[in-house]
């Protein structure tokens, strides 16, 4: 039954892909596509169209929309809008701590990073390790890792990702920086095949996420149709890691966004 539905949806959206997806198509997929990664992909593609929505509408959507893709799009669009908002550091911390959903809290992360970047590295590291939510840890972690970027190495970042005693937000921030070290410098950069392998079989979710993030830089070269087919085929293969699926979903979202 599941396969039949998927094939039906696949046929429908593939033809949409050839014809060019519309915002309405994306909203439909973001809200209720049977494949979670298609919801996410549609969410990534909706960020720019959602920029026209009001702050209140976006916060409501990020906090309570039923589709994960809609919450994601609203969260990312709200994050961009909030960069122009005048709020205090405490207000950003409160938003990243008390938001109703992960997406609502995540919307405060970029602005919170800017509020935190003036702090000293030790204070940032402490907040990255012990912040009250994963979003606060992540924002502090990203700010900290930017601050100390001249001293980072791939080994150090892999160590953070692998350390179960550290906070999830900090490890996620480290994974995103590690993605850059998987791509640069050129002499030691991993190939697409190596990244695929790590994204599929890395030792833990953060190491897989790092490789998946780096993998996106290769996947964005592919067409929306090819990416769509891959996302659907991955859905039919339950053994594939969530991070690997996410990489293809994000690349598909970026491809759809480009075609809008």
């Amino acid at each position, binding site marked *: 039954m599941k396969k039949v539905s998927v094939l039906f949806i696949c046929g429908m959206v593939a033809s949409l892909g050839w014809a060019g997806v519309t915002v309405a198509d994306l909203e439909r997929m973001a809200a209720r596509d049977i494949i979670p990664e298609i919801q996410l992909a549609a969410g990534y593609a909706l960020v*720019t169209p959602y*920029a*026209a929505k009001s702050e209140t509408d976006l916060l409501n959507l990020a906090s309570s929309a039923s589709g994960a893709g809609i919450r994601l799009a609203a969260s990312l669009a709200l994050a*961009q809008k909030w*960069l*122009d908002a005048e709020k205090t550091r405490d207000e950003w911390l409160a938003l990243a701590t008390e938001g109703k959903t992960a997406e609502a809290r995540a919307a405060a992360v*970029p602005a919170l*990073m*800017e509020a935190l*970047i*003036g702090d000293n590295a030790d204070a940032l590291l402490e907040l990255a390790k012990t912040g009250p939510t994963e979003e606060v840890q992540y924002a502090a972690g990203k*700010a900290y*890792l*930017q*601050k100390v*970027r*001249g001293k*980072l190495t791939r080994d150090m970042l892999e160590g953070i990702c692998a350390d179960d005693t550290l906070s999830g937000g900090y490890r996620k921030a480290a994974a*995103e*920086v*590690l*993605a*850059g*070290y*998987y*791509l*640069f*410098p*050129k*002499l030691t950069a991993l190939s697409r095949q190596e990244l695929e392998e790590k994204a599929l079989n890395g030792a833990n979710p953060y190491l897989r996420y790092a490789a998946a*993030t*780096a993998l*996106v*830089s290769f*996947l*964005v070269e592919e067409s929306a149709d090819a990416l769509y087919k891959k996302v659907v085929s991955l859905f039919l293969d339950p053994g594939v890691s969530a991070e690997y699926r996410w990489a293809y979903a*994000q*690349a598909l979202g*970026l491809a759809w966004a480009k075609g809008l």
Partner: protein
Amino acid sequence: MKKLVIGLVASAFLVGFALAQEYKVVPFGQDEWKDFTVGNYGGYLVVGSLDNPKTFNEHVAQETSSTDVTGRLHAGLVEINPITDLPEPGLAKSWEISSDGLTITFYLRQGLQWSDGEPFTADDVVFTFNGVIFNEDVRTDYRDVLMVEDKLPTCEKVDDFTVAFTLPAPFRPFLRMIGGAIYPAHKLQQLSRVYNPDADPEALNSVWGVDTPPEEIVGMGPFKLKEFIPDQLVVLERNPYYWKVDPQGNKLPYLDGIKFVISFSLDTIMLKFRNGELDVYAPRPEDLATLIGEAAAKGIEIMIDPTKPLFGTTWIAFNQDCPNENLREYFRMVEFRQAMSHLVDRQSMIDNIYLGLGVPQWSPVSMLSPFYYPDVPKFPYDLERAAQLLDQIGLVDRNGDGWRDFPDGTTFEFELTTNAGNTIREQCCQMFVEDAKKVGLKVNFVPIAFNALVTKLLGGEYEACLLGLTGSSEPHGGRNVEWSCGGLHFWKYSDCEEPTPVAQRIDELFDLGVKTYDFNEAYEYYKEYQILAAENQFLIYTVNMLFRYAFYKNLQNTAAFSPLVGALGLSEFLWKANPNMVGNRVVG
């Protein structure tokens, strides 16, 4: 019928009007502009700035937080092509050089207007040079670069659209230097004591301060000042009277304006770029992994172009006048210096120390200079050849201890230094020491503080050192290094008293190169100089760091971003695919 007549009259009037205005057409799609496209109007370029501007007066501005702004407000007679780096017509549509090379006559574009709509004429040019730049009341560094044999040229009006400069001696770089900002006589003439003996001597230094109403600041540049909010923002807007057009006749610039977001922290500027609040960012090497990791998701392009190294050179110098007479004898042998070049593993330095962000340097002229000659003799990494050359000059291991010796049997060894704390240079030195060891050459690496190193270098008290020099497009800028009596001729100050034939020839070539206005002729002189410098390895060049630039892909006509002009130098040609976006964010 009546309507048709009116239409024809209107067209004729417009065509006539357009012909009267001698706009400069930028040939996008052709020659060096082949990667440029005709754009759409709209949007702001948003860039970060590390400080407030201190003045909007270009001729007294010194810091980049001011000159980044003022450089967009003004224009000069001659401009430097941002791609070829060669002088070409600016406000002057052409120029003529007298047969003796002493008089340069500039013919101005006619029908141009200042940003306030007033007409631009030769009076503005003559006022700018005689009333401002050559005026001793004005504290401008620009006056110094126009000096030829310690004298200033003279500037005279020939007619309303012609001015003539007379030089004390022929001086080719004059054409490169003469592109300074032209100021509006109608706004500023009364502030100059050359024109108004009652004027305050300080008036031209303090005019156009940061509290000046924007409409008072008038220029011929692509943008004009709209707003300055201290500690926050400088906003420039399009100059509607700008005098350049694209091949379709659209007036430049395409952008509505430029916003300089002021932040006093590089960390904040980088973060604002990552968050999509800035369109462009000049990353340092340590920024790259972070940016590259998120580039695909955010639509960031990171330009690392092996054809665009930074200006400046890094080299190893052997002091041919060093206090140790035994070493001096060998340091003066060209075979020894060529052997030392064969010990420099430039590719490993690039791969392992510069993280791939470098290219080998072989010539004293900066690689982006139009005078750069790429095919100079090269002495690349080759340990075997290095050993052969050392054997040839009698530096062999005489006692079997593994180190090469002087003829008297003592170990041949020298001290190599660099400025302590510069990790790239320290690692390059260490790599050189290891490679030297492989051919039995003992090199003792001793990093010292920068100021102490400079003292040793200029005092002729070092043996060998790895250091760098700044560079520019104009080889004449290196005359203080290459000239046998130059203040920075630190590898052999004795050339001043006893110049070798090669040193004498290089002196001649610099004199010849500066006196001809013919680029091709000058190129031949500087080519010969580069060949001589490379053959003789006076300085052993190592690696040149590459230019890096990051920008959001929404920005168009970015292909020519380079160390010559950065991004701002091309701002009159930039456009945005989506004018409502800054970075990757929709705004407004």
